[in-house]
């Protein structure tokens, strides 16, 4: 089972209490949502702030090194697992190893870093230490400049997907040949249609979770090009999105989706159904964020949340959460 548990708010679970069961049933039928919201408590570990200007995404290597896209500063910053500054990759510019407002990133099993260098219309690849390896240009779409906002790489680093935000499509590249392998999607609200695909997560080299911002959903497709499911939908109720931005999937298959306007992170089951909302064990309520965007959950069940406007990376522990 999970290393954390789901609890019920405002109600103490007493297995032997028939009275409590009755109350629960009554509230299920009539009570407001506040009395029936499932929370996943996350223990706050530490923050990294004061060094970013509107950061957007985060990725964590197997060795625990934390990489944060510090896009307006035109760089990637690396930190130790405890949050100590390690080094910086890149600077503003257009040359190799330089960035123009990058947004998303990913990391493969060997630790290589993939950055969606948005306004340079390319993906750049670096070693774990930040040495430039190569760049792969993202082609125009019928004359419209590519707008790569995120990259999702397979574990072995053979290929990756790119979200072409402005052109509402998903592109697949072969890294070895640097060639575009396939292009998926078009503008729209149906399956395999997008309105501003943004950040992504590739789960187990198979399922690609794509935040579809204006469609207010996460669309899941697989590497075989087949539609899997939608996660979430339009609205401000639980399981709904107003401005979904970031997505990540933990090792058990639970998907985490940030909503930058509502300031919450919601969890969904692998089938796409609502699971819970990230909670604050101190207040006992929903944990609120300010413009949360990029997310990452590492193998040790640490959740990394990037808040763009405050310029902050927050790290939480999902182990033993109440």
């Amino acid at each position: 089972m999970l290393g954390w548990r789901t609890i019920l708010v405002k109600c103490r679970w007493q297995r032997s209490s028939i009275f409590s069961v009755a109350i629960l049933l009554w509230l299920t039928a009539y009570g407001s949502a506040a009395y029936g919201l499932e929370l996943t408590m996350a223990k706050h570990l530490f923050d990294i702030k004061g060094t970013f200007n509107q950061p957007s995404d985060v990725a964590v290597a197997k060795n625990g090194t934390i990489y944060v896209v510090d896009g307006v500063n035109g760089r990637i910053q690396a930190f130790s697992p405890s949050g100590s500054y390690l080094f910086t990759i890149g600077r503003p510019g257009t040359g190799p190893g330089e960035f123009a407002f990058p947004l998303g990133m990913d990391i493969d099993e060997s630790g290589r870093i993939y950055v969606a260098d948005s306004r340079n219309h390319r993906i750049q690849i670096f070693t774990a230490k930040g040495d430039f390896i190569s760049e792969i240009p993202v082609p125009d779409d019928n004359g419209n400049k590519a707008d790569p906002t995120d990259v999702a790489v397979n574990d072995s680093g053979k290929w990756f997907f790119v979200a072409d935000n402005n052109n509402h499509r998903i592109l697949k590249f072969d890294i070895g040949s640097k060639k575009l392998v396939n292009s998926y999607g078009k503008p729209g609200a149906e399956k395999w249609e997008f309105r501003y695909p943004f950040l992504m997560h590739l789960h187990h080299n198979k399922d690609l979770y794509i935040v579809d911002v204006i469609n207010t959903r996460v669309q899941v497709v697989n590497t075989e090009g087949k539609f899997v499911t939608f996660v979430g939908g339009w609205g401000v109720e639980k399981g709904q999105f107003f401005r979904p931005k970031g997505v990540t999937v933990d090792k058990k298959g639970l998907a985490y989706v940030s909503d930058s306007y509502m300031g919450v992170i919601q969890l969904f089951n692998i089938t796409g159904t609502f699971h819970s909302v990230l909670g604050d064990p101190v207040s006992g309520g929903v944990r609120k964020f300010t413009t949360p965007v990029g997310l990452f959950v590492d193998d040790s069940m640490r959740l990394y949340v990037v808040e763009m406007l405050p310029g902050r990376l927050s790290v939480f522990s999902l182990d033993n959460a109440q």
Partner: protein
Amino acid sequence: MNRSSTYLLFLLFLLFSTIFLHHTSSLADQPPPRNPNSAKECAICHYRWIDTFFIDGKGTDLVPYEETTKAVASQEMCFSCHDGSVADSRGKVYNDHRHPINKPPPPGMEIPAIFPLDDKGNMQCFTCHTAHGVSSEMGIERAVFIRASNDNSSMCMMCHKGKEGGPAAGNHPIGTIKRPIPEKMLSRGSVEGSDKKQLICQTCHTVHGSPYDNFLVDNNRDSAQLCLDCHEEKGGVLNTGHDLRRSAANSKNSKGQNPEKSGICGACHLVHGAKKVALWARELPDKSENRIQDLCISCHNRQGLAPEKLLKGYAHPVNISLKDKGMTPDLPVYDLKGKQIPFKSKEALLTCLTCHDPHQKGTDRQAKMTPPSSSFLRVEGGQPERLCRQCHVQQARIVGSDHDLRNTGPTTKNDRGQSALESDVCGVCHLVHGAQTENLWARNVPGKSTFPAQDLCLTCHKSKGEADKKVIGGHSHPVDIDPAKKGINTKLPLYDKQGKKAGNGVIACLTCHNPHQWNPQKPEDHGGNNPEGNAKNSFLRLEVAPRPVLCGNCHGAKAYVEKTDHDLTITAPKAKNMQGQTPAESGVCGACHIIHNGKNKVRLWARDYGIGKGIMDRMCNSCHSETGSGRNKVPKVSTHPEKQLIANPGRNSKDQANYFPLFDNATGAFKTVGDIACSSCHDVHQWDPKQASQGTGNNLEGKATNSFLRIQTYNMICKDCHGLDSLFRFKYYHDSKKRKPMPAP
């Protein structure tokens, strides 16, 4: 009932009521019809129109209830798309400086009703923006989603009133300008109006994305790069004395800003809220004679920022028309209001800015000259003389001559201790500012001078002076005399006791000499390397050789000697005067008269006197002797009986036809009673008494009607005393063949 039964009944009640109430509720309270798709398209921005808020009137587990208000474009809402997820405005809108939000408009600013404020009266994104904004002539990339057309910044000025009107309103000009908007500004986000050269608010200000003060497209603090983007030619002011960051770091402009905050340009000029002259940023007097001078004097005064650069003493005149003086410099001229106007305009005047460029034009010049020695003069190549010559064209001919002290007196220094190499050729003799005398002389003049015009020359041409090899001494042409009193009319300049030119003045050195031009006939002749001069050059104002133009200007009748037998250039070209000059070198006058440093006082005679009793005759005999150049014209007998008490009253006026001068034998002075000398009967400067003109150039044999005789000589004079005996006596005195022994009395 026992406790278990009670629980069971209560449980049944809950189940019943749950089923029953749920059913009745569904029937009685049907939710209103919803249209999720169309509602979403609006509510994607109109957050408050989401059904949960707008219809149900409640919040959710995730977010609180949101009241419906009119405008939705809050910062948070805008950023929810402009964070890169739909559009990326992170760098431009949400980075660094931008138009303020979450603040009320400045006091006194009237915000038109079409620009809503939030409930607290603060500006928000929606104050200017709406997703339903008007289209704009400037294109969707620039003006979409704004509430009014911003064509040529028209929307900006709906709130920011009073920023137009140009300098007359104390603002930087907007509208079509002369120069194009520089590409480097456009690349930084600067926007030009519908015309390519149209300056609008957004040319300098960018509402979003500027890291600089006042949303400027470039930094205008410190080195004021924004101003210099356009006004590149003003960049020479950087690091000069007029860079107040350097020279007056604590000074403040009229907005209370120090130079670092205002930027180097803002220390003196304001783009908005400036004075109407030159957008001046400092206090100016209410009334003024000349506004351009006011700008300078606003700092260069005793209480100002530059008291050490006061305009004290005598200075070059300003507020004068150069055109009226016949000067045509390639320099800017201004009207009294301080506006630069065309040179030909009637109101065009020379002002401070005519000679000074307070911004020190040109980087090349800046590299060559380190302020303050440059004095912000409008010169290329660091030579002030090049500026002076713009107006003083003739005076510039001094360059390369003996009076160019860079060559002939490099150690000579002016009153400021500047050598010619430091002050340049003009400055070593003239101070444009701070001179002690009105003629701007740069050298110390004796305090009790009686004749300043002469003293200027004597500051160098004196014993132990810089020009002590050219000191005036011995017997020289008189100065400090009024030619009018001598019956002389001249076009040469005369000078008053203050050293200024005056028509009724007296003769000074400068009457005959032009110290700025070595050769009066050849302006391009600078004399070479410290040459010995002669009558053709020597800074003479007019030529003396080969024609006696200069001397003839005063001594008009004497100039008739030219091309007569007394013109030694013709009759004795190899003869030399006492200074060893041939007539060609000395000129026709100089062959007989030495102007400076002569040995002989009387008539400044240039030759050794000949024999004879009277000095006048001795001068004639210096040539008309057996070994002289006039040896062919030596009268055998040339003396009139002496001590006859001959008187000439009535005949002693030069203007009269019967002029018959008598001379003092010792001094040559005119007398009314004395002995007859050669010059009593001969006018040595005029061959034919009836022909007031120069000679023919031919060595003529004379007769009684010419031969340098005075007109009355053969006509009247002799007869006056000797009656019918005159002819006999004349021949007796001048023709040995006719001389016979005198009959015994």
